[in-house]
């Protein structure tokens, strides 16, 4: 049976369409989830897409965290549901305390929009098992509040536990501590990434096809997971 991957639309989401398309190109069935949904419609995994949920009011992701669909996602993630938060989705995962740390204003205050080289460092997660450890990939980054911060103890723990999923290579676009571009929770089912893999899935529109690996990874992960 085809895996069903939910893509949440919040008011102000931008990249939900591209995320759903990436899911389809990876060979899964995208299922559109609405922020007000009180159930997950039986999806096998969830993508929280980029954008400006609730206008980024208060803090990026702060209000989206309380959307009805997020309560279900938080519960299900504790049971192992794979969740990928991209950009604003990463911010939401931090605000929901599914991932440690926070994303703050880019150190140089400029919005950054460019193709960005990343090094994948953790391939044990539900969303990165299709990559080789140390593999360099090129995917777009576009954020104004992508500077990852956490206290030193948290950063040290992330490094020691192999939970830094990807780092910026060839220039840090936002001042993130220790060049962190993506992290995972202890179980490896929840991943937050600031750059946009869903924009690098087709030669016509992306700088590479490297982003597809995140979406094929979760399918591989689901095949290996007993229902």
């Amino acid at each position, binding site marked *: 049976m085809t895996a069903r991957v939910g893509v949440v639309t919040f008011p102000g989401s931008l990249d939900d369409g591209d995320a759903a398309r990436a899911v389809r190109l990876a060979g899964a069935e995208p299922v559109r989830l609405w922020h007000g949904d009180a159930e997950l419609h039986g999806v096998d995994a969830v993508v929280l897409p980029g954008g400006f949920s609730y206008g980024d009011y208060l803090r990026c992701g*702060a209000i989206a965290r309380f959307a009805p669909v997020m309560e279900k996602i938080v519960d299900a993630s504790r049971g192992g549901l794979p969740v990928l938060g991209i950009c604003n989705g990463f911010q939401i995962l931090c605000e929901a305390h599914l991932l440690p740390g926070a994303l703050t204003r880019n150190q140089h205050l400029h919005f950054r929009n460019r193709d960005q080289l990343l090094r994948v460092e953790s391939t044990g997660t539900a969303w990165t098992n299709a990559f080789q450890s140390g593999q360099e990939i090129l995917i777009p980054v576009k954020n104004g509040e992508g500077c990852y911060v956490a206290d030193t103890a948290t950063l040290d723990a992330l490094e020691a536990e192999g939970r830094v999923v990807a780092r910026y290579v060839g220039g840090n676009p936002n001042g993130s501590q220790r060049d962190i571009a993506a992290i995972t929770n202890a179980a490896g089912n929840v991943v937050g990434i600031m750059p946009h893999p869903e924009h690098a899935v087709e030669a016509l529109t992306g700088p590479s096809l490297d982003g597809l690996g995140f979406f094929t990874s979760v399918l591989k992960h689901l095949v290996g997971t007993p229902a």
Partner: protein
Amino acid sequence: MPRVVVDVMLKPEILDPQGQAVANALPRLGVSDVASVRIGRRIEIDFTGEPDLDQAREIADKLLANPVIEDFTVRVVGADETVDAQP
């Protein structure tokens, strides 16, 4: 009716690029004796009844501030409070 004021500030160890940008602009105003500027947020909450400080604290902790990067204070003021310049 009294109102609850929540002040949210970035923790001292968190870089505040907005504050830095403002501080860097001050010399253009001819101000040269400012060591640093930090920018926070003031939120005013009016309850329908008596102000509930405990509830305001919970609102601040769960929504208004992100305890990972921010500190907050909660206080009750008169509804017509104006911000007085400190002498």
